[in-house]
């Protein structure tokens, strides 16, 4: 049942699953499948062997685009592990064998060897974030790395808020309780080191500003700057639950509007073109989120006198800008 369409990239995926099951003797959650395939692909590439694996950067890091391959030899079965975690476990379907792939033996050997090597490297690692972090560190640019680290930290902050979460003054649908099941929101007790948390978040944001690659991600730079501006204020005002939700929104849209378009290999041009065409929709959706979260910020932050202190000069600038736009629109 060999077909010339089942080639190097398919074999690579096949070998990764087989190696982890047989060589490392454990399951392979889908997230880790993506990352291990990518490591095998990249390391072989660095050693001079191009396997053509279709990959792209997305929300949770690097993804293998199985839709671009003949993929009926692999399945992802729902599984609940002993740890209590639920996910999808990668398995080889029925009795697929290596000889069903149409590739040169020497190439097959190199792929198998590398897959085993990578499987052994993570044999005793059961935390998928470790493999994920490895791909970020080795192949992600410093901005994407920084954002990944910031997200880990910010995700844990959802329980910490200066404002009693049900008291958020906001539009219908923007209150914190919309995003979580837990509505136990009696007086929130802030941990003693809330200033430390603020300072950590500010440090993450500083790093993101420093590392943002303007030339690479030029299309969504205005949205990044607005997200960063509002997030900084959320941190300064200890509105950490909003920070987590907002960061997630930004990350999803940014992955669609920039990451997968800028960082993909072996994806069909038609698909990439479709992603580009959807970019404006993503930007518009993110602008809407920005407006929503800015409103929540303005309604709940502690006001300062910083703008009032330069109020006269600022107001003149407002009038000049109004005039400029008016004349420009004629």
């Amino acid at each position, binding site marked *: 049942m060999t077909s010339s369409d089942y080639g190097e990239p398919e074999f690579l995926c096949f070998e990764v699953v087989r190696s982890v099951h047989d060589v490392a003797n454990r399951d392979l959650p889908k997230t880790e499948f993506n990352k291990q395939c990518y490591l095998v692909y990249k390391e072989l590439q660095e050693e001079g062997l191009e396997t053509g694996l279709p990959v792209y950067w997305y929300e949770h890091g690097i993804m293998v685009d199985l839709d671009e391959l003949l993929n009926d030899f692999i399945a992802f079965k729902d599984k609940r592990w002993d740890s209590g975690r639920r996910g999808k476990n990668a398995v080889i379907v029925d009795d697929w064998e290596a000889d069903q792939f149409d590739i040169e033996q020497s190439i097959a050997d190199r792929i198998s060897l590398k897959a085993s090597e990578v499987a052994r490297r993570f044999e005793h690692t059961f935390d998928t974030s470790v493999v994920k972090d490895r791909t970020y560190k080795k192949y992600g640019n410093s901005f994407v790395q920084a954002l990944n680290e910031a997200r880990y930290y910010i995700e844990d902050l959802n329980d910490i808020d200066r404002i009693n979460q049900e008291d958020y003054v906001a539009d219908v649908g923007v209150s914190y309780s919309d995003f979580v099941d837990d509505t136990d929101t009696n007086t929130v007790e802030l941990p003693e080191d809330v200033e430390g948390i603020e300072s950590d978040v*500010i440090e993450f944001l*500083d790093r993101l*500003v*420093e590392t943002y690659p303007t030339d690479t991600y030029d299309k969504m730079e*205005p949205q990044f*700057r*607005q997200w*960063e*501006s*509002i997030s*900084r*204020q959320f941190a*300064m005002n200890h509105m950490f639950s909003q920070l987590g939700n907002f960061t997630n929104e930004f990350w999803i849209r940014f992955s669609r509007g920039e990451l997968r378009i800028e960082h993909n290999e072996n994806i069909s041009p038609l698909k990439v073109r479709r992603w580009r065409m959807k970019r404006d929709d993503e930007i518009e959706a993110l602008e809407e989120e920005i407006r929503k979260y*800015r409103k929540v*910020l*303005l309604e709940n*932050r502690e*006001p*300062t006198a*910083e*703008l*009032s*202190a*330069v*109020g*006269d*000069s*600022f*107001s*003149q*600038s*407002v*009038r*000049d*800008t*109004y005039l*400029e*736009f*008016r*004349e420009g*629109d*004629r």
Partner: protein
Amino acid sequence: MSHLGVIDTGVLIGFTIEQDQHHENCKDYIIDGGHREVILPPTADSEFSNIEQRIRKSLSSEVSEHRQKVQRVVNDDPLDRSGLRFIRDGLLDSDDSERAYSFLYKFYSRLIKERVQIYVQEIISKLSNIETEVWVDWSQQYGGWKTHVRVWSKGTGQYPSIESNLLICEGDDPDICLEAHHISTLSPTEPTKIATANRRHFIDAVPGEPESREDNIERVTDLKEVIDLSAPLKQTP
């Protein structure tokens, strides 16, 4: 004496975005200007919806771009006065911060006067507050402008002969004038006045024209008076 007050876009911008004496003047008129009601004509409403966000966005993003530049470039910590001068005179760029330049310059000048030394993180926090407060609607502390101003929704009329006799001709201003006239004709029992922040187009005498804009409007339309809510002319430093 009680009247109907029709306001233009500039007055609303003064009330909601500005933060100086002009804001106070606009606020005083809108809240307590001796009128029975304040009305916003449809053209001014649509101009305001469009332009309000643009103004805030452009000023705020200039401040945040400058702030992010300071973050990337400034290494000394804490800064002394000469460090602050370096930022104000060297780093702050009127090409990048085209519109925000003057108030950012003032911001640093005050810091230089008031502080011997300051941590960069404190400057960043202050700038962050400024870029955020550009978005504040200052009418909210009075209940929001919509609780004091009615947006006109009863249509407009065609007045070709009035239009041809009006001297005002710039952009949307003639439409605002005609809409105010229309509103006035629908309230024959009380005087309607137009309150404007734009004296150049609605009040002043323009060289070459037979009468002042104000006299012209009062003569040609049903409007009783043009109320001057313009800001004083910019002082050149």
